[in-house]
């Protein structure tokens, strides 16, 4: 259903976070994405991911925050560190897990056609080789293509395939689909004039379809420079791989260290792919001790070292842009780079040596020259990420700019999601639900407060009606949809939970419960295969950790989160046994003389109506009664309740609002007797 009513919810710039949500990494390209997101007006952007070739999933804007936090944390969250110290082997940090869960738990699923028609603008800041994403973009009707903007960071895959030893163009048709997606776009962001010209030629488009934006040189605020006395430092930044001239650079550092004993030579970068002979040579030189090699520094530490450097080196034979060059420049650090690095053109001058040809002698000579010349008073690259974000956000290309509506539209979307969870309704009557939702919204002062209006009377009635209808429609439609794809994609806690149950022989029960509640079969074995097997106790602890996190409350809704906490908090005996690893739930059942739950047990929950019941039964009743939308938390809730029910747990009265202490949380992740 389209129309002016729904367009109220689409007066936003939609940002494609599919790639990041699927695989959060800390690549240079994703760093650009995060830096831009940090400075975009948060109330004017909305994240989405490609659901399949014909649908998009609108995500909770909370994912932006987690993405930024994930990127800032180069080390896993503290609780994860604790868990790892006790032998657990899960790898995802808190932020990464929540990013994935948020991506797996969209607020709404929309047909692509409607999305393209209604969205004011669609921006993708990352390249991809995913045919599903490509086909989605290609499916955009020509009339709406002007709204689609891609950031093209480089054309290396196409122009310099030799840089990627793993790339075999014989099998790389997915990149041709990416090219096709580009062809279906309205405009492009690029970081250099040269790339703009090349892209325009390659796509056979006017250069006016390209917008050159300036990457920011500002890094996160760092501690004051770590300058140790009279010692100076030369810092090289970059993964150790063939295109970064590793051998030449390391040999240059060795010479500099030999000629200048007061200079610390520092190499910051992971090992990439280099041949065995080169690696042996590099390791030999590094073993001499004259060069310090750092591999796993936090962003803050890297920034501090860069800031403290007297000269920076960044050379590459093939580069999309070369962020470190402008970062050195912004920090006021003289830099040696080469002409093949596009960012070199932006800093060429007194403090930047741009080599036409990279050779050992030239590297050493220029470093020595810059060391002698000393650092400038201030940075010599002025662009910041806020400027970049503004350039991106304010360029409409061939699309029609849309004015700010004054409504926090993102809040509207979040409200939609809550509606689905909070409103009891008969499953089958979507119209009835729509009406109930509309009435509810109209009467809910919280809604009007959250969208930026203290009094709904300040909004024109027609507009208010349209907004209410839009929110109701989205909520009604999406409660019908199973908008959680399948377990294979919903990683993290849910898959871990499935593993717990598989180890406890609850898998079959889980499958039956799923069929009973949702009418859809579940390939739990496939899901289990997607996640490494861990001990039942470890996984249960992880689950507890997750549902006790602050974000869970906001995400799940306070009532559900509290209910889960109570269930879990008072099932301490069971949990302790699981954590000890000596008994699994199956054996526990045998000890207690409890048979495994059957479908009938689950269905029984629906008949419970007495007021004075144990909490597990109330939880089951709640699960059965609330509208089901098939999201990950639903299943988690269902199964947790089923486990407790099957074990005949008695839950203490409601301790609503009081969450467990940090000590209690940590005690769950430490094995008994550790």
């Amino acid at each position, binding site marked *: 259903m389209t129309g002016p009513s729904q367009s109220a919810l689409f007066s936003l710039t939609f940002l494609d976070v599919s790639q990041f949500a699927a695989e959060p990494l800390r690549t240079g390209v994703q760093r650009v994405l995060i830096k831009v997101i940090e400075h975009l007006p948060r109330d004017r952007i909305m994240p989405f991911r490609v659901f399949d070739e014909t649908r998009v999933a609108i995500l909770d804007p909370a994912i932006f925050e987690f993405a930024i936090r994930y990127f800032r944390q180069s080390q896993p969250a503290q609780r994860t560190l604790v868990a790892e110290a006790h032998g657990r082997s899960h790898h995802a940090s808190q932020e990464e897990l929540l990013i994935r869960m948020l991506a797996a738990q969209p607020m709404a699923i929309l047909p692509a056609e409607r999305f393209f028609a209604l969205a004011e603008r669609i921006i993708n800041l990352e390249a991809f080789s995913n045919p599903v994403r490509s086909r989605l973009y290609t499916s955009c009707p020509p009339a709406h293509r002007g709204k689609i903007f891609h950031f093209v960071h480089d*054309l290396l*895959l*196409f*122009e310099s*395939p*030799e840089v990627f030893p793993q790339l*075999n*163009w*014989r*099998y*790389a*048709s997915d990149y*041709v*689909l990416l*090219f*096709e997606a580009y*062809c279906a776009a309205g405009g492009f962001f690029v970081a250099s004039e040269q790339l703009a010209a090349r892209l325009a030629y*390659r*796509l*056979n488009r006017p250069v006016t379809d390209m917008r050159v934006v300036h990457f920011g040189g500002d890094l996160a605020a760092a501690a004051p420079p770590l300058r140790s006395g009279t010692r100076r430092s030369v810092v090289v930044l970059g993964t150790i791989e063939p295109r970064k001239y590793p051998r030449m650079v390391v040999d240059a550092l060795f010479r500099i260290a030999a000629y200048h004993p007061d200079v610390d030579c520092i190499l910051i970068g992971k090992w990439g792919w280099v041949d*065995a*002979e080169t690696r042996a040579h590099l390791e030999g030189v590094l073993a001499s001790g004259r060069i310090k090699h750092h591999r796993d520094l936090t962003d803050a530490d890297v920034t501090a070292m860069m800031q403290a450097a007297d000269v920076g080196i960044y050379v590459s034979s093939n580069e999309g842009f070369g962020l470190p060059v402008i970062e050195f420049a912004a920090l006021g650090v003289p830099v040696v780079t080469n002409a093949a690095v596009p960012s070199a053109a932006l800093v060429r001058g007194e403090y930047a040596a741009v080599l036409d040809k990279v050779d050992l002698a030239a590297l050493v000579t220029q470093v020595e020259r810059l060391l002698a010349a000393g650092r400038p008073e201030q940075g010599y690259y002025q662009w910041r990420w806020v400027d970049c974000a503004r350039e991106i956000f304010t360029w409409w290309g061939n699309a029609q700019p849309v004015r700010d509506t004054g409504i926090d539209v993102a809040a509207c979307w979040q409200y939609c999601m809550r509606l689905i969870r909070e409103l009891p309704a008969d499953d089958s009557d979507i119209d009835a639900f729509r009406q109930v939702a509309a009435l509810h919204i109209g009467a809910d002062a919280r809604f009007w407060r959250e969208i930026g209006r203290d009094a709904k009377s300040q909004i024109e009635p027609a507009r208010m009606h349209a907004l209410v209808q839009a929110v109701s429609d989205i909520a009604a439609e999406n409660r019908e949809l199973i908008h959680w794809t399948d377990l294979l994609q919903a990683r993290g806690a849910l898959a871990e939970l499935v593993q717990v149950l598989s180890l406890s022989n609850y898998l079959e029960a889980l499958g039956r419960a799923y069929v009973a509640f949702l009418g859809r079969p579940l390939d739990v074995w496939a899901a289990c295969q997607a996640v490494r097997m861990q001990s039942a106790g470890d996984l249960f602890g992880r689950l507890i950790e997750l549902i006790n996190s602050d974000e869970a409350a906001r995400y799940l809704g306070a009532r559900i989160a509290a209910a889960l906490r109570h269930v879990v908090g008072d099932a301490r005996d069971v949990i302790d046994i699981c954590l000890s690893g000596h008994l699994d739930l199956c054996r526990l059942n045998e000890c207690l003389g409890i048979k495994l739950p059957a479908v009938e047990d689950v269905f029984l929950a629906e008949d419970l109506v007495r007021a004075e019941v144990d909490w597990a039964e109330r939880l089951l009743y709640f699960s059965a009664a609330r509208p089901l939308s098939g999201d990950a938390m639903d299943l988690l809730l269902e199964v947790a309740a089923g486990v407790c029910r099957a074990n005949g747990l008695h839950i203490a009265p409601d301790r609503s609002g009081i969450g467990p202490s940090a000590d209690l949380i940590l005690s769950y992740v430490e094995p008994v007797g550790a």
Partner: protein
Amino acid sequence: MNQVPALVRWHAENGAGPHAAIPAIGDAASYIDSDACQKELRIAIDMRALQDENYAGKGIGQHTMFVVSVLRGIAHARLLGVVDPMLPPPGTDAAALFDARFDMLTHANPARGGDIYLNPSPLTHDTSGLINARRAGMRTAAVVHDFIPFRQPEFCANDAALAAYRYLVQSLAKYDLLIANSAYTASEIRTYLPEFAGAVVTLHCRSRFAAAGADAAPGPDPAAPYIFVAAADDPRKNVEVALRAAGQLHAIGLRLVVGGGFGEASRRRLMSAYNQPYYMAEPAFLPRVSDAELRAVYERARFVLVGSEDEGFSLPVAEAIALGCPVIASDIPAHAEQIADPRLLFAPHDVKALLRAAEHVIARAAAPASLAASYRRFDHEGEAVQLRDAMADLGAEARRAGPPHRPLVMVGPSFNKPTGIAVYSRLVMQECRAQKRQINYVDADALEPEAFYDWLLGQAESDIVYVMGNNNIHHSQCFIAMQNIPGACIMHDSRLFEFLLNREGPHWLAALWNRRFARRRIDVDTVVHWQRERRLLPYSFLDPLIARSRAIIVHSKILAAHIAQAYGFRPVFYLPFALQMTRQEIDLVMQMRRGRRRAEGDTIHIVMLGETEPTKGCCELVFALKMLRLIGYDAMLSFVGKSDEPFRSELENNAHRLGIEEHVVLMSYMSREAYLEYMGSADVIVQLRYALFGQVSGPLCDAVACGVPVVASEDLAAGTGLENYCTVIPNEFSPMHIADAVRALLDGEPVLSPRPRLHDMKDYVNGLFDALASGQAS
């Protein structure tokens, strides 16, 4: 012969190896030609029997060491080891016997300056050494061990193997001197080579063990008496007879200890012949043991049993005799030559006779001196003197004069075979006939094995030009011929990876690589990976051709440079590929092109000529078509050549996936007329190759000759000297490179550069004969 010896290069690539003990030779040629060396008897010895693991550690290897040590005793003799780089290097002990070692490179083998070529094992490897030596005017000698495959043809894997063996035997007649390892073998020489006119001397094999003296020898083990069955993992060794007799031997308190390092499968097979109850001690199968351990096994045995069905001479019998161990053996002629007492012999499959012989030897062992008289001992010293004299006499003879005229033969695929090489060879021969060149053409692969080897035997004095491709079906026997009779090689393909993979298997290829690049070892998985991803192939594997060629003719400058640089091979000649189109055909195509005008909106026709293959960038070309269409070029793509499965399906699937299947044309068969028509109608021709050591494209030459706009990959264009007449894209090309190049041709201003004068077949044949002459001169 100014060339840094391959020996020095080999050392550099492989690091210090077991051959570090060899005196360093700075310049092989000057060594050979030095005054000191010139005055001496220079004996070039084929070291393959000491390199090949199948023979080095066995009887043949042992006897070879003995022969060489005998020759060391010739005054003023220099022993020059000629190694085959296709085999592992010889062990330290072997290498220490030689004054110098050289690679078996035909064209600059310094050993050709030697006086005598000695082949210690002429029936186990090809005849290349013999042929080279004869051509160099050297006198030749060979050691003959046996003719077992003639007597036991069932030991040959198949008819082809038997025919190959027969060829090797018949080639013995070309030697000047044959050295038999026994009187029996000497008599066999006369039987199988009645036409042999040269001398035959006998040098009996000598045991590596010498008796330690009465006090030192430990004697039989009284606690666990056993019979040592001296054997090897070879059905001919007939261990079964001992196993069938095991029960009765147990009855007299003797168990069996079987030597030879039998593998698990062979042991299981043999034990089926062992029919004793489980409580009887089973035979013990020894692993491969050191000489010292083997000696102890001999000395502690009650007696030694050798049941072999056939031998030229039995080293186990000789070793037992040398160590003073009682021994019984099968009554084959070789054993009868070594064991005088017939009661110590038994028919190979007669258990009762074996038992009788066992009883007899046990009884006689009570009087060792008397028993010793039952065994023959040979005058090794006397025979050594004879051999040295024979070699000295041979060396004093005048160098062999070659025939006044050597017929020239070209070996290649029949002209009716459906390959580009066959077509090209036909045109070459056509021109040769037109120029009245005296050259015959033979398709060696069309001959049955027996006929092939008969033909090969008659080619010893011929100059042969081998036309080689990378395909086993059409070039297998051609390859064999070249291994036996080195000659010039016209190499149509830039690598032999696929050929060798099919012929020898991945383990062989991995072993070849590991010998060549000892510091970058690989395993079979890597070879399999290269087979799947041909563009990753880092090496051309041309070693077998390089090792047997006098001259190599290639059609790519890149390949010529690669061969020279990677293999250090000098006589490699770049000969431009001849244009295969006739003047009339060129005129026809040009006329077709003049008559067409492409109007705005006409479909652009992109054409690739030739059979579709992954290494020709066909997938990338399909992708480039899609990209062109996306940016507004209404183009279609025709693959004008055979397109077979499974690659055809890959192309079709790619086109379908990208929604352009209607714009991609694939063919099954293409006539010459269709070929010309497509060339006439093409807007752009695209000819690409992955950069695999320098490849060639005949259609590229055709397209340039007809003035068709062409896109070519860098090495393909540069290799054929056509880079100025094509739009060149990088070797590591992507679809975008292809699309850019096509656009440049379509959108750019036509450049009216003169068409090059391409080589025609007349130029080619003239060049070929010039190259052959140069190759022979070197």
